[in-house]
């Protein structure tokens, strides 16, 4: 019984956004377009955590693991195939398999939120060390040298499906990434409105009750975790495509923290929130990078603490609740319903 009004608003908003994405190259210069492209890829990553945390109730502190695995899988596959189409598919499959394995051990073990957060964070740290150690000729997958801390340069960027000689221009890559963000947003919206989505929300709300009604919470949580891995991996592929380069810093603690901050600022339990949070923080980090006085970590940390203490719900849900209570007040002024059963 999804809220059809909300879906309508989302569709109209998405249509307008899509129009903006397609026409942007006409009035935005190339440098800014490149900037927007990476923002859009990051926003997809934000959606992946917004989905599993905000709707699935899964506290993942290491979402960058799947992002990084997707990025590396894309780079390695694209170098080997010389074509981006299979590489994109592999960039989704690899993180999904990894999420399935990791998720199985954590979710079927029945560990607490605190443990899950810490373990997922640890995974990203260990992947960082692991990939960092792959310098030298020995570490090769097919034609792709992993390159250790130097990363993989010269990754083939996205081409037209079926024609590997037609490489997308930066403008086309922007349109692709921007539309991908909108598509992922709508896809997750539809998923949340589906029976599956209702059930994962029910499990988030009360796992015991869901189990007592015959739903196996572990299966649904694992699937949610895997979907999050898929979306993050896809974002990783688009991110590599932006810079034609990937290095182990993609697994670093800084990015893990940022993803969490995006979702905290934007708000859990909405999809638009994480996108807003991501865009705000990315813009802020770019601005901080331009000055020398304050360290970016310092500001990010202060923002995180500030939101946890003062706006724990995040921007989007806070605004939504304000609007709702305003509407409620107007309504209850006109009619007082009898709500006794």
């Amino acid at each position, binding site marked *: *019984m999804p809220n059809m009004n909300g879906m309508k608003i989302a569709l109209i908003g998405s249509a307008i956004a899509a129009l903006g994405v397609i026409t942007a190259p006409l009035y935005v210069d190339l440098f800014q377009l490149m900037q927007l492209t990476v923002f859009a890829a990051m926003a997809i990553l934000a959606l992946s955590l917004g989905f599993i945390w905000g709707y699935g109730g899964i506290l993942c502190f290491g979402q960058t693991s799947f992002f990084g695995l997707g990025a590396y899988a894309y780079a390695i596959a694209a170098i080997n195939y010389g074509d981006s189409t299979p590489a994109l598919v592999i960039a989704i499959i690899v993180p999904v398999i990894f999420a399935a394995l990791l998720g199985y051990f954590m979710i079927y073990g029945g560990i607490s939120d605190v443990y899950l957060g810490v373990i997922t964070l640890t995974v990203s740290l260990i992947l960082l060390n692991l990939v960092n150690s792959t310098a030298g000729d020995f570490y090769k997958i097919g034609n792709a040298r992993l390159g250790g801390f130097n990363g993989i340069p010269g990754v083939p960027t996205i081409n037209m499906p079926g024609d590997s000689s037609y490489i997308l221009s930066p403008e086309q890559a922007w349109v692709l990434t921007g539309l991908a963000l909108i598509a992922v947003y709508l896809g997750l919206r539809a998923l949340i409105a589906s*029976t599956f989505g*209702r*059930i994962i*929300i*029910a499990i988030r*709300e*009360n796992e*015991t*009750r*869901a*189990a*007592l*009604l*015959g*739903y*196996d*919470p572990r299966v649904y949580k694992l699937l949610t975790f895997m979907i999050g891995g898929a979306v993050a991996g896809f974002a990783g592929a688009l991110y590599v495509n932006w810079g034609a380069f990937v290095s182990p810093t993609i697994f670093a603690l800084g990015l893990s923290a940022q993803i969490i901050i995006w979702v905290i600022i934007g708000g859990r*339990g909405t999809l638009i929130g994480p996108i807003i949070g991501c865009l705000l923080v990315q813009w802020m980090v770019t601005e901080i990078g331009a000055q020398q006085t304050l360290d970016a970590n310092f500001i990010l940390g202060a923002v995180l603490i500030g939101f946890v203490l003062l706006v724990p719900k995040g921007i989007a849900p806070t605004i939504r609740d304000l609007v709702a209570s305003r509407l409620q007040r107007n309504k209850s002024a006109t009619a007082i*319903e*009898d*709500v*006794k*059963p």
Partner: protein
Amino acid sequence: MTPTPLLETRNLTVRFGGVTAVNTVNFSLKEQELRCLIGPNGAGKSTFFKLLTGQLPPTEGHVHLRGQDISGAMPHQISRLGVGIKTQVPNVFNAMTVEENLWIAARRNHLPKFSTDLAEKIMVQLRLTGIAKREVGQLSHGQRQWVEIGTVLAGEPDLILLDEPAAGMTHDEVERTAELILEINKKRALIVVEHDMQFIKMIAKTVTVLHQGAVLIEDDVRTVLQDKRVQDVYLGKGLAA
């Protein structure tokens, strides 16, 4: 030959550390039977329910549902075999509407359209239609209790366990709950845990008394309420009324 009972426990026992919360309980329930389960606080009634629904694994002994051993099965597996429970503290989906709570429960066995109809039907039966669109988290304790009963009914179980369904209700509401239970009992078996003896008298046929985790007596409601041991156990608490 006697028919296979709907539910049967054999030597069912659970211990926490040194405490035996449920002690070698042999319990049997026929199809479509209505049984009341009483006993003082700490007698092990809620723990017994947790063992029946898989929320706790037994330390010893077995639970059989229509002859099938379900001891140690997971809650969702037992639920799918047709056991529904209203827990003592309401377990509901707070951020969802009343309608959605019931729909989720119905959707487990039915397609979306039918689930909507079934949820609607149960809301009418439980008089929840007026609050269908309200978020359950904002409702009163009594209303949440009704919503939980609604989700249990929407799952269409053959056996329903109700843990203190009349707690915190007004006199009228208690009477309605009793009527409802008798109505449900036309199709389904129930085990009802309750402290309110007036309520027990309204619905009970056979009563099982638990004391310190073990079955003290199991008999016709009048016999049980007049039993000396039962009165001692309760120390006259509400029993004389």
